[in-house]
């Protein structure tokens, strides 16, 4: 499953970050690494971008970017 399939209020853990190397680097630098727990806080009013919480930090990213993040243990 990918992060962009999660609904607001769901949690999951990161399995792999894909996409272009620029995007991957940015995402990894923000602490979204393998095993990190993400919580989808909400989607923007126009359904894009989304806001997630990782290690206490609120981070926004576009839905197409979130689709590059593979997650499991969705709950």
């Amino acid at each position: 499953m990918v992060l962009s399939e999660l609904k607001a209020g769901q949690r999951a853990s990161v399995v792999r970050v894909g996409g272009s190397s620029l995007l991957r680097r940015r995402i990894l630098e923000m602490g979204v690494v393998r095993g990190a727990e993400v919580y989808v806080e909400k989607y923007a009013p126009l359904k894009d971008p989304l806001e997630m919480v990782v290690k206490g930090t609120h981070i926004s990213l576009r839905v197409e970017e979130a689709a590059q993040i593979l997650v499991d243990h969705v709950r």
Partner: protein
Amino acid sequence: MSGNPPTPAPPRRLTIALAGNPNAGKTSIFNNLTGTRQKVGNWPGVTVEKKEGHIHRDGYDLTIVDLPGTYSLTPFSIEEVVARNFVLDERPDVVVDIIDASNLERSLYLATQIRELECKVLFALNMADLAREHGTKIDAGKLSALLGVPVVFTVGNRGQGMDELIEAAIRLAESPAQPAHDRNVRYSGDIEEAIGRLERFLTERAEGSLPYPARWMAAKLIEDDPIVKERLVAAAPQSGMHALQAARNLRQQLAARFDDDPQLVMTDERYGFIAGLVREVQSTTSRQRVDISRNIDLVLTHRVFGFPIFIFFIWAMFQLTFTLGEYPVKWIEAGVDLVAGAAGALLPEGVLRSLVLDGVIAGVGSVIKFMPNILILFFCIALFEDTGYMARSAFLMDKIMHLIGLHGKSFIPMLMGFGCNVPAIMAARTLESEKDRILTILITPFMSCSAKLPVYVILAGAFFGPQAGTVIFGLYLLGIVLSILTGRLFRSTLLRGADAPFVMELPPYRMPMAKSLMIHMWDRSRMFLRRMGQVILLGSVVIWTLSSFPQTAGFLPDDDVYHPGENAAAESAVGAAPGAASPDAASAAEAAEAALRRRAKAEQTESSYLGRLGRLIEPLFAPLGIDWRGGVSLLSGFVAKEIVVSTLGVLYATGEDGEEDALERALAESGMTPLSALSMMVFVLLYLPCLAATTTIRRETGSTRWMLFSLAYSTTVAWVMAFLVYQGGQLLGFN
């Protein structure tokens, strides 16, 4: 410059660099340390803002340099390159790394990288009290011991810990340097082996000519760092090339082994190392942000209310900037008039007086009057930024802006463009990616600024009567459509690719500090005044020269000498005026004298270099249905768009300023048609931005080429669109 570490005598001057994540509280610490004694400029060659402050403490001259806020020190964004190069090349005596206590993990990601640059590092553990309230406790002593870095507690937004920070920095600068090898990140076996092999290769082959520590360079080569590669080859051409070849092979082996880019594997492992550190020093009771910030966000980015609230804030900013700003603008204009009046009274009639009045005072006055708008606008922007709302506005708008190939943050500059392009282009500074910034700057001038409105009002009023409103609305719409098309065009050609990822932190809402707001506002405005003042002054004098020379007549009002025949009637009226018997005769004389002035002025403009230029470029404007007078007006509009109207007034020799009806009538009688008026309005909407905006483009893009490109592009678009309107309209049978 700063002394080298081993110098025996204590250096009197120390350079202290501040590093840290965005939103870690770096700016408030910098402001608290340096107060208003700041120097704001740009880092050489790039448009990243550089802030420096000087303070004296305990017999030391301290230079505090604020490095750009970054999450990392990779060479892939300008900010990171600037920060890293400063530490590597300028060798500051101490680097203070600001650690956000509520985000230890990510702060340490940057901190461990700074540590590896082998400089003297001091940690400022910022807002630890706040973190404790939220259930996070940090063992600073352990952190200090584990990384071998002294730690000072600070609370940036309350100014606490500043003295301790400075004292610790001075103490550290005066202490002998300590090797940090054993406390650096250790990677997994394969990567460590590759780094070790490369490190040995470098020390054996290029010892002595290496610009930076060997292990660090080896690790960077494994990460395929372009800047380190470049510097290595520059320092040791031959062995450097061999090392690059060796690094390439090692990278390939690692990529095959991990089935991933070695650089990303190393990022992962660095986080692994940090996770270990964090487990050692931090104890957490709750991880979620359950503060007031989240509740504010529930409202401000609400599914339904988010947009209306956003629109309200933007509306309020617009109102403040352009409506409230209108009052001081009027005062300044009155002040400029006062100065002009005084200068006019002091100076004798002649060229010098005209230069001072029409060139210098008018030119500088036209810039200074933007000051209140700019102050207010930057106050609002600083408020948005310091509270954290700016990130939310980008969050709300990104979907729409992304359709044009832009970032959510481009929205505010574009919107401000409807008021004035100068602050709008300056507002593009909030965009982090240079490509996004340039693209935003290129399309902002298509937002029809308020100075163009008088031109539309005159032309549409004269030729479209009751439909004038619709026509003007259509013009604004055309500007928006062209900006969208331009955005899409450039995003897929000139500024392709790096549609920067939207990965962006939404920082917790914070109470803004008045001091920080003031410093923000004042810095930007001061920069505007100083730099722009010079260029505008020069530009205004040039335009004045072009329109005043060669001189036909002496300066007013005694030009009746030069037109004795033509103005016989007027002359007799003037002659009759002194001691006039009837009020009628007096007013007739006044009117006649005014007519004389106008005619002389028109003649002067017509025969000036500017007028000749107008004649010269007439063939260019002919296909647009614009005659030479229109052409000259458009040229003069380069100084400021409002001037188009006053030049038209001069050339069509109508009443002095204010008598708009007269100009409208004169235009209609001059053979201008509704179609050519429309063509001219389209041209005014789109053609080159005014001098002030042009200068701002030069400054904000940091490049004369982008400025020239912007001028050429907008003027070409203007010509093509006006051509289509005029010729197309004629084909369709309008006139």
